[in-house]
């Protein structure tokens, strides 16, 4: 029996406002509220809400046999809570059906998996906490921001207790292998790897309404017949896309919703069922291990991380940012830590790419860099005010360790004192 695994991603960065250099040190608010609100409201009204309604209906009418997965970044959740809380409510409704799974990821949709393992762990935990609070279930499957993956990242994630990781169909990793199998990690064989079917996913997400496409119009019947024509051993087809694909990239007029409504019936008619990533990991046999020594992602033809880290501008920005991560984690200034997360969104670095600045709202990569660096300069000044960068990292750690030790010592001494006092008062009684 063949299975479809649907997964939809929601992420929107907190976009930065125009921040000139003379505001450095003066203005500590970095975000373009108007733009962010408008963007989220637009997506909520055009895509998230209507599509959620359709998915709820599909689950109901198929008795829970239609199943799908969501991955919503922490930053996106925060913005939804603020600007479109009804979207959160409608996801809560979906969560109650039991046919929907929420994935773990980095809270800030960040590149921390590459630059800072400690930050990465902290963010993943933070995100899982938030998902558990909102939707009542702790995720067991993980997908990284931009589907970035390498053996090393797999190991990190596995150690945190996640059993399944999602990644993209990258030729340098899969070679001739088909994405339609479950694989496992090179040496941590319990860690299951699911691979996005690049062609079929993009057929729905990007080509559906393209009239010059050979296969236009795409009907559910046609789509299911493609699945049927695959070799019998290929058990799983992973269809993963941005949630905006349904409603914004593909407008309702294109018939995308009718396609989605018809798909489960045609699929089930052909004995094709729907699965969630955690179920796939448990139920299907793996076809062997695959390995990626260098990080892969889901972007472009190269499927590497060059859209975020490929040029000098991006390198400088990332190194400046992650240079202070130790210090930021040490401090307990709430606004500072919040800004720290917001500044880590991979999008900010994508906008600085010369070759593929997808989704940018800047006129050029240089402008994106200029604006980001001005904001970062102010942010670094604030970090510096807490923990001056003139002190070396090690030195700082030592000092803090001493302070921590002292605190603990004081605590134990105090407890002892309490006990003694209690004993004393007992005796007196």
């Amino acid at each position, binding site marked *: 029996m063949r299975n479809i695994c649907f997964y939809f991603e929601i992420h929107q960065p907190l976009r930065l406002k125009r921040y*000139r*250099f*003379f505001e*450095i040190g003066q203005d500590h608010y970095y975000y373009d509220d108007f733009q962010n609100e408008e963007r989220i409201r637009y997506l909520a009204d055009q895509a998230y809400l209507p599509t959620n309604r359709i998915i709820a209906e599909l689950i109901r009418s198929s008795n829970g046999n239609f199943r799908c997965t969501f991955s919503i970044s922490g930053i996106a959740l925060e913005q939804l809570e603020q600007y479109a809380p009804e979207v959160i409510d409608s996801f809560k409704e979906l969560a109650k059906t039991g046919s929907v799974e929420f994935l773990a990821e980095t809270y800030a949709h960040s590149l921390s998996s590459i630059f800072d393992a400690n930050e990465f762990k902290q963010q993943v935990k933070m995100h899982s906490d938030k998902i558990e609070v909102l939707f009542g279930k702790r995720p067991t499957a993980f997908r990284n921001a931009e589907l970035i993956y390498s053996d090393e990242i797999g190991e990190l994630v596995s150690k945190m207790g996640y059993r399944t990781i999602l990644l993209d169909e990258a030729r340098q990793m899969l070679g001739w292998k088909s994405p339609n199998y479950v694989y496992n990690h090179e040496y941590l064989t319990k860690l299951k790897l699911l691979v996005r079917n690049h062609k079929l996913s993009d057929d729905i997400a990007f080509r559906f309404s393209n009239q010059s496409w050979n296969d236009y119009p795409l009907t559910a019947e046609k789509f299911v017949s493609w699945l049927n024509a695959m070799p019998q051993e290929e058990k799983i087809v992973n269809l993963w896309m941005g949630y905006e694909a349904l409603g914004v990239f593909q407008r309702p007029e294109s018939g995308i919703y009718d396609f989605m409504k018809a798909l489960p019936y045609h699929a089930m008619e052909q004995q094709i069922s729907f699965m969630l990533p955690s179920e796939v990991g448990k139920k299907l046999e793996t076809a062997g291990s695959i390995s990626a020594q260098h990080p892969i992602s889901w972007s472009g033809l190269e499927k590497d991380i060059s859209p975020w880290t490929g*040029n*000098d*501008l991006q*390198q*400088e*920005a990332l190194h400046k940012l992650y240079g202070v991560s130790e210090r930021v984690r040490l401090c307990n200034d709430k606004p500072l830590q919040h800004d720290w997360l917001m500044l880590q969104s991979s999008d900010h670095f994508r906008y600085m790419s*010369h070759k593929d600045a997808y989704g940018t709202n800047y*006129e*050029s990569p*240089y*402008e994106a*860099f*200029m604006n980001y*660096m*001005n904001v970062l300069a102010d942010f670094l000044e604030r970090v510096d005010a807490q923990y001056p960068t003139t002190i070396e990292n090690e030195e700082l750690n030592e000092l803090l360790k001493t302070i921590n030790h002292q605190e603990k010592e004081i605590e134990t001494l105090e407890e002892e004192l309490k006990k003694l006092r209690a004993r004393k008062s007992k005796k007196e009684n």
Partner: protein
Amino acid sequence: MFGWEFPPHILGGLGTASYGLTKGMALQDDMEITFVIPKPHGDEDQSFLKIVGACNVPVVWKDNDWDYVNQRIGSQMHPDEYFWLRNGIKYDYTRIYTNDLGCIDFSGRYPDNLIEEISNYEAVASVLAHQMEFDIIHSHDWLTYPAGVFAKQISGKPLVIHVHATDFDRSRGQVNPTVYGIEKRGMDAADHIMTVSDLTRKIVIEKYFQDPRKVTTVHNAVDPLKDVDLYKKTPRKERVVTFLGRITMQKGPEYFVEAAYRVLQKTKNVRFVMAGNGDMLIAMIDLVAKRNIADRFHFTGFLKGSQVHQMLADSDVYIMPSVSEPFGISPLEAMQVGTPSIISKQSGCAEILTHAIKTDYWDIDAMADAIYSIVKNPAMYESLSKLGLEEVNNIKWQDAGLKVRAIYESVM
């Protein structure tokens, strides 16, 4: 081709562009170019085209013997050619003041009696049109449009005019009606109009009421700098930001001063240089003094030749805040020596450059921000410098030449 300037004796960008374009076109094997200018100096590079000096073309018949002509103009034109051209005199131009050879004395500059010089140039064109063999007439800028139009009327050959600038650029909207009239007549008579940018194309269509189908953009390019290795940056502790050009209203020098003022509020490690001369120089010196930044703001006066390249190479940022710039070749020259450029969106060259910072000319905040970013972030400087150099090396006159050729063929 009718032009007004040709290197090495040039007064503005027109001469540089004429040289680059003809050199790029000459790479096509079957292209033969005769370039007419009012007054050659004899040291022009004639390896790829033939220069005819309008001041050596007789417009009034005078009897002279071969040796006398040879002694007078032999260094610039063969006497045989003089006598041959003399046969092309079909009209009576005795009303024009001519010298002993029947030729007109041109200044070759932009004198006060420019309009008269333009019409005298027209007279020369009539002689050439009657006598010479050619397939197409190409006129560079408004000074030569009347000559081109007349040559077309006489020979019946197609006329292409090349708009390097319009009076709207030069005057910020205060157009001189006489100049406008000459420009408009030239454009109306032309079979095709080439503009150096889409910006200029739009002006030609909207302000001169030309049929858009008749107007094509051919962006300028830049000649590779031969002795590029000569121009090395002198290491110094402070960053240098440079404005280089005529200090006139068109170039927006006041925006540069204001941007400098803003940058200096935040950092002291920068010096600003304004190189060039012009009618706003005094006003700019006053403004700098008023903003109290004179200790960090320097005026060099007019620079020429290799001084220009050295100044550009020594700069960390080149800035061109032009209010209206049909093309603007100088940012490309800055990029050739690896200097990052900030240009106004109102410049034609912004249309073809990716690795340069573009701001509105009036947006001094954005300009200041860009300057600050380049002097503060090494990655910004390096990227713009490295990628800019790569980019500018791929902007070739040869490609512009091919576009011009295609236009020729469409009207022939």
